[in-house]
């Protein structure tokens, strides 16, 4: 992998892969919805970023991308923002020039903001149609309180209504600066040529003299055990049982990721075999532990018939608690590692997957080398490491329920 830093402070990573004629490149901005003052701000920036620059209007930008049969997308996430492009090799320089223009010269036209605001409000209402999303949103609200992680990336109806154009511009000017950005490119390219192209198209992109924005305060999580519930006339109950968990790079991070694999990944995972295969309680049952710069959360969940809600909640609690009381056997541990490491490797088959992973690691502060050190850390884990991480994490759960009214309230 080729790595350099441009004069304007932009970090650049390039991997030449001549095997396919597909170039995947991404700009990562190291600021996401965690840095926003109003929920939904970063999502709205992502929606409007490609809808006007000093040189082109929305249709001209769309035409430039679509006439190449290429892809250009902007996305806000909790910890970062990304602008991604994908094209055949020959179209890459033109697309890169366009991406640079968006980063440096976006104008956020007022009428485009209104269209995207309206669409976002509709999308927020549509979230209510998906029981898992309702349950997860309600979980985050209860866990994170005042912290921005409390909100879905779309924001809330009230917050999105209230966003002003001036706020979009202020966030864009404050955070979209080369010394707060990373560029990653994977494909049939010459690294030196990519750097030359970048320098040419980003000549006007300079870091302002003011210091980088200060990171937001760390999350204060709501520790008390509680159950939050939304009543909806669904056929299934959605049961989430979750716990506050460590940020990326903290001591228990790798152990909790491996526990996530053991409990929730694939057809041979503990939750799948115990709750679905042996007891037929669900079609979907799983666990996840998002990678976050600030304090994260570990969630187990299941969709089940309403009369099984209580049984499933107790079983999910039991499976996490169990890991605080037993050590996995060496064989179980090895199986979990094989599964984790094998599937991690399978997650790097396309140029887009590689550019996403490395850019993301750079953006969240652990560096692209985390790709190696992380997997090494997984390979080193011992049974007692998992147990210790479980003891520190699986204390009192926060339970989030969505389902019909007749489900007995659980305390």
């Amino acid at each position: 992998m080729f790595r350099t830093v441009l004069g304007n402070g932009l970090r650049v990573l390039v991997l030449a892969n001549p095997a396919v004629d597909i170039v995947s490149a991404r700009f990562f901005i190291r600021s996401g919805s965690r840095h926003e003052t109003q929920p939904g701000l970063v999502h709205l920036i992502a929606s409007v970023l490609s809808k006007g620059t000093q040189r082109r209007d929305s249709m001209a930008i769309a035409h430039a991308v679509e006439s190449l049969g290429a892809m250009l997308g902007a996305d806000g996430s909790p910890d970062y923002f990304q602008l991604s492009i994908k094209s055949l090799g020959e179209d890459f320089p033109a697309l890169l020039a366009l991406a640079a223009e968006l980063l440096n010269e976006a104008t956020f036209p007022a009428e485009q903001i209104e269209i995207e605001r309206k669409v976002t409000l509709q999308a927020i209402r549509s979230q209510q149609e998906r029981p898992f999303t309702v349950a997860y949103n309600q979980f985050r609200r209860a866990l994170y309180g005042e912290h921005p992680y409390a909100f879905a990336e779309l924001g809330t109806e009230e917050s999105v209504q209230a966003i002003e154009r001036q706020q979009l511009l202020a966030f864009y000017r404050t955070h979209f600066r080369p010394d707060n950005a990373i560029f990653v490119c994977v494909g049939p390219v010459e690294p030196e040529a990519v750097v030359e192209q970048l320098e040419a198209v980003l000549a006007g992109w300079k870091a302002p003299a003011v210091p980088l924005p200060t990171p937001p305060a760390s999350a204060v999580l709501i520790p008390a055990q509680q159950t939050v519930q939304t009543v909806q006339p669904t056929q299934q109950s959605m049961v989430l049982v979750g716990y506050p968990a460590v940020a990326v790079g903290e001591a228990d991070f790798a152990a909790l990721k491996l526990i996530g694999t053991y409990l929730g990944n694939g057809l041979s995972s503990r939750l799948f075999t115990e709750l679905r295969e042996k007891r037929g309680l669900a079609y979907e049952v799983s666990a996840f532990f998002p990678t976050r710069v600030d304090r994260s959360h570990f969630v187990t969940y299941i969709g089940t018939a309403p009369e099984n809600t209580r049984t499933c909640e107790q079983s999910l609690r039991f499976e996490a608690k169990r890991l605080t009381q037993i050590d996995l056997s060496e064989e179980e541990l090895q199986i979990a590692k094989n599964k984790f490491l094998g599937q991690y490797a399978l997650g790097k088959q396309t140029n887009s997957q590689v550019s996403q992973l490395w850019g993301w690691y750079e953006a969240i502060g652990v560096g692209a080398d985390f790709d190696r050190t992380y997997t090494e850390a997984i390979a080193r884990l011992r049974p007692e490491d998992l147990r210790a991480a479980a003891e520190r994490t699986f204390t009192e759960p926060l339970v989030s329920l969505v389902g019909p009214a007749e489900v007995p309230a659980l305390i």
Partner: protein
Amino acid sequence: MIATPSTTVQNFAGTVRTLPNGLTLILRSIPTAAAVTCDLWVRTGARTEPEALAGVSHFLEHMIFKGTEKLGPGVFDSQIENRGGVTNAATSQDYTHYYITVANEHFEAALPYLVELVNRAAIPPDEYERERLVVLEEIRRSHDSPDRRAFEILARTMYPDHPYGRPVLGTAESLLAMSADQMRAYHRERYQPANTVAVIVGGVSEERMLAACEAEFADLAGQPIPASVEQPPALVPPGIHTHTLARLEQPRLLLAWQGAPIADIEEAIGLDVLATILAEGRTSRLVRSLREEKGWVRSIQAYFMPQKQPGLFVIAAQADHQRLEAVEAEVRGQLAQLIDEPVSDDELGRAVRILRNDFVFNTEAPAQLAGLYGYYSTVATLETALDYPAYLQKVRPTDLQRIARHYIDPQKAVVLRLLPESL
């Protein structure tokens, strides 16, 4: 060794063979790939079910994972996943397929498990009863998704007297009525070598692929496959159907037509191009007009869903209730224009380039290629998949006018309006 001559397939950088028992092998080595995908496609799905066994193909897919006499429940999953591999399966109207992706070095160890599992399913009675609960949960879950409900209603409306109109999952009633014996008989009947395509794509040599396949597939005994429903679906008269859906927040508008069967590949590709011109990207006709300029829809999509028998061409919008009629009128107007006036070369070029590049983007990983080869070989021919880009280049504006007039005439649209219960 089994001396099956390789079938010559133009433009194919791999090997196609038919074993004496009728099983088709499609092998392609990609030396730079770190992983290999084995994908078994069986020509059986909701379309090939007797009505009394509605949902049996999908339920059988679940039961296949419950093992064989040699492999207990869960052994297959753990054997693949313990090697760092992934596995899954899917059932549709026209096919059921089972796939594993593993690192190259595990290929020879993993393949026998897949072959054993798919061909020698035991369907143990106690597991059958338990897994039925899981499928019932899957049905409940699908009922909680307005988009799945919308598609179910659409299929029922578009194919009232054809298996395509039935949900692939079946119904609670049909599942409770069927027995493990009936499922075993269905499995014996349908899971025949001559009804199966095995696709292997990835970073091992063709010699290794061929050796492993001959060892695993050659001794599968074959018997004739019973004929399945080949009666094409009847056309549905145009009209407007209104339904209410519980928990719907955003009304949906769907306009649908039966399209070409996938074997009519030039027509099918024409429909793909028309869908792209209508609704792919901000400069497409409907997105530009309805989302970007008027702001009447949250989203609008057009797609052609190919099938062995006539598939569906669908235009789907999400909009506020008071806008549905105006959106529908705009869609009808745009369709009429597509029929009346040839599209410009620029617009056609844009659509062809988008579809051609999508094709390239979707063939980067072995699993994607295996899926492409398997799908087309199952519902049409491998050549259809390989020739897709060439056919795309041949599309002319006059072809599009003719195809639009034939398949997506606005006068013949079947319209579905899905509204929240509160309206």
